[in-house]
């Protein structure tokens, strides 16, 4: 118990120190003070062997064994510079992020960029819990490394610090840094197939019946956002020299379609969200107009990519104020520290 508390406080202090030394930033160039270096396990084994051959050289008064020992020690010292050089000066930036559903892997792209004549080889990237990423910057000056991170919980996912490390060229030393790239991505609830429940409480497997090409009415304009269908762009407005606007339609085939939280009584929160998520996807796929009604923040009926994203994000973050970055952080760090 006490040990745990002491460890937690050490972790906290370390985290604080690290935050001061390497503050969160979407792009970071590894300066001298941001790179840590320490012998690897192989390095310690190498050191032990050197110690043994040194004692041998002394005991047998053998000049060449001593010379070899000194030579290999020098190799070790020189490789400190080499390993350090293979990380310092490298620029790391956050690239695009691909959100995902709970249970899948989110993809964060990490951009690495070198400057001038300096090349980098055997760079390894780790994110707590995710797969290892590798990169070489010899011929290329920039690479984008996809980092797959399994996401189990819906919400706004902030991965902890990215560990960038290298053992190149001789593997006897490990240089590393912890970078907070200040990235986050939405983890949507895992969609679960279910029957559509109309507002009257009747289950319909195929969803609400409407005619998508039917008597949709124009209701107004919305500023264009990436992902909106070009079919809905109001070209006339554009021709007048104004920015892109899209026309919004509302289907009147039947009454407004609402995905309603209240339609799933008795289910727990996560299940409801999963059910709603399924229908958000299904209806968006069919390009249908629908509204989402969840407690506290209803989203009016609409369609299109932006609308879909808005709904999914709403589902992802519903009631998740606890899912803050600090928790993820200290958790990931207590383990990272152990490894070092």
């Amino acid at each position, binding site marked *: 118990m006490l040990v745990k508390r002491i460890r937690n406080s050490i972790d906290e202090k370390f985290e604080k120190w690290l935050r001061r030394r390497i503050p969160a930033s979407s792009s970071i160039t590894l300066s001298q003070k941001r790179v840590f270096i320490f012998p690897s396990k192989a390095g310690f084994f190498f050191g032990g062997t050197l110690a043994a051959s040194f004692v041998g050289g002394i005991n047998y008064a*053998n*000049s060449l064994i001593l010379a070899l020992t000194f030579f290999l020690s020098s190799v070790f*010292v020189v490789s400190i510079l080499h390993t350090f050089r293979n990380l310092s000066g490298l620029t790391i930036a956050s690239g695009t992020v691909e959100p995902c559903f709970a249970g899948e892997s989110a993809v964060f792209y990490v951009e690495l960029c070198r400057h001038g004549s300096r090349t980098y080889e055997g760079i390894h990237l780790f994110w707590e819990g995710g797969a290892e990423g590798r990169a070489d910057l010899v011929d290329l000056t920039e690479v984008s490394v996809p980092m797959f991170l399994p996401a189990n919980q819906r919400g706004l996912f902030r991965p902890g610090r990215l560990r960038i490390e290298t053992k190149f060229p001789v593997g006897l030393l490990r240089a590393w840094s912890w970078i907070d790239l200040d990235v986050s991505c939405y983890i949507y609830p895992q969609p679960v197939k279910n029957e559509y429940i109309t507002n009257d409480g009747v289950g319909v497997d195929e969803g609400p019946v409407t005619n998508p090409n039917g008597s949709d009415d124009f209701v107004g304009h919305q500023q264009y956002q990436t992902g909106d269908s070009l079919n809905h762009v109001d070209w006339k407005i554009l021709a007048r020299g104004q920015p892109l606007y899209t026309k919004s339609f509302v289907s009147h085939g039947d009454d407004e379609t609402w995905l309603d939280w209240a339609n799933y009584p008795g289910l727990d929160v996560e299940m409801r969200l999963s059910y709603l998520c399924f229908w958000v996807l299904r209806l968006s796929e069919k390009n249908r107009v629908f509204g989402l009604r969840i407690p506290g923040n209803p989203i009016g009926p609409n369609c299109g990519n932006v609308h879909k994203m808005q709904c999914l994000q709403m589902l992802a973050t519903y009631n998740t104020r606890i899912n803050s970055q600090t928790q993820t952080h200290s958790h990931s760090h207590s383990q990272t520290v152990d490894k070092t």
Partner: protein
Amino acid sequence: MSARSYQIPRDSLIWLLTAQVAVVLPHIERLPPWITFVSALCVFWRVMVYQGRWSYPGKQVRLLLVVTGVVGVVWSYGTLLGTAQGVSLLILTYSLKLLEMNTQKDAYVSVVLSYFVVATEFLFSQSIPIAFYMIFVLIMITAALVGMNQSYGEHKPTRTIKLACGILLQALPLMIIIFVFFPRIPPLWSLDLSGHKARIGLSETMTPGSIAELGNSSELAFRAQFRKGEVPELHDLYWRGLVYSHFDGNTWAPGVATPGDLIAAEGNVRNTNGYRLLQNKNDPVSYTITLEPTDQIWLFGLEMPVSFKNEVGFTSDFRLVKNTPISQIYQYDLTSYLDYVAEPKLTGWMRDRELQLPPGTNPKSVALAKKWMKQESHQAERYVGRVLNWFHEEEFFYTLKPPLLNDEIVDRFLFESRRGFCAHYAGAFVFMMRAVGIPARVVAGYQGGEINPLGRYVLVHQFDAHAWTEVWLGPKGWVRVDPTAAVAPERIEKGLEESLQDGGEFLQNEFFSVMKYRRNPLVNNLRLSIDYLNHNWNKFIIGYNSDLQLQFLQRFLGKVSPQKMAIVMMSLLGVCLGVLALWMLTTRTKRTQETVNRAYYQLLSFIESSGLIREKGETPQVFSNRVVAELPELTELIERLTAKYNHLKYYPLEGHEKEILVKDFQNEVRNARFAFMKTKMNVTLNRN
């Protein structure tokens, strides 16, 4: 074998296997053949595993191999203790490790062990060729290490080896600094390295034929570098090593040792017994001997030597002994008094020791000795002269191939065969002395040597091995008498080769020895130059000990203290590392623009050779048009290159893309040379 077994990168594996073969190769001559075989098998097996034909052996098989290996070593050597056994075991495990490479850790262990096996080779040989060979092995091992840490995508073997060479090259100055300055600590515990190889050299006992065997070996015994370069006359070079006082009728052996001598043999006693017994010490010569390994404790020195080394003792019969067997090249300083009086007062028990004879043997010799002693009226010196004269006048032969003698060997030698090597004469002479009550003993060592004009040092070979005698003549003490000199004076004056009546006997079994061709000045100069190199290598690199370090550093730093040494070493290392860090950690942008301009000037020079010169202020485009008008057959080439030049010069390009384009432009300009040469030739042909 686990499904997720680690795959060592191909490049790394190739280097690792090559290094493994290379590192075991010099050990082969000392290893039991089966270990060599196992090692080769492991490499082969690993190659097969790589090719996917075989799989790694299972855990039981590996365990069985290890146990069999240990048992095998015990079976081969009879024990597991000892350096040679340890190295054998190391090589065995190191080879077997190849068959267990499931994780990256295993691969690292294998590589780091390779470095260690390199170190063990130096226990057995520290020669120049081995040292340079090992540098290549180090490059290979380091390449294997680098290869392991390169990602799969970046695989180019030359890149790996270049990087390995770079790292080693950068480490070299640091190594030299540490080597020079790092204090040489005395051994923590003493180790015995002997017993791995039969050494050629003098042995602890002497039978009549034993020294003659050495006459056939041109191996080096030691080198002696005289201070001030003053080498005494060849016939004064009696390198004393052993004293034989006990004769059992067949074999000469050392006499009973005094307690003091036993202490001396343990070393750590400075100037024991012997020094006290020496009197009238005049004309000292100082020199340094670099002794080749003998696996014995005795040291050689000019009669009479005095050493001031702590680990060297000096016995009451004037022998130098070291506390541990000399299993590696050993360097020691000596002072010798060529003019000396040794032990003018003989103690009773010593007298008894030096008069011992097996009773009742060799009656004819004893009778002759007694007769002559009586005739010379019991005057020892005259009697000695009589015997020597007899050797000189009578038909005695000096030969490397004396007939074998059994029983009563002195009688048989003196009255029947009369053919012998130095050991026969020395033994017989001492017998004749002792038979009439004159204390005498056999001394063995080397006589003479060869002076290398480069460096003025003396080379002493095994064929210079010699046995002579010492006779105690009252107040004169022990006087050296060399009966061989009476039989074959050339031996002492000119060396063995000159003295053998049958010239073919010299180095008969060494068909390819360079020594045989030393009459050829070219061969001989080469031989002596190589030896000079070896001599300096042994003196300054192999023999770099705390004494030499002190001498060397005093020359440059004045007074040396440990603090001063540490400070100088650290600051030199710091400077080296600082320069290296600065060079490595500064970002350099390649000066591509300059390269582009240079290439364009090259192009201009080609055009100029066709008689067209770009004028001041003429833009590349305008000039290009003018050239095309004159040389229509090169239109395409010139227009293309000009366009590229303009593109590179005036369009903003960044990074790697630009580098490729610049290189491309450079290459194209270079190749354009041939097009210009062709047009020029056409022009000349057309004119004709």
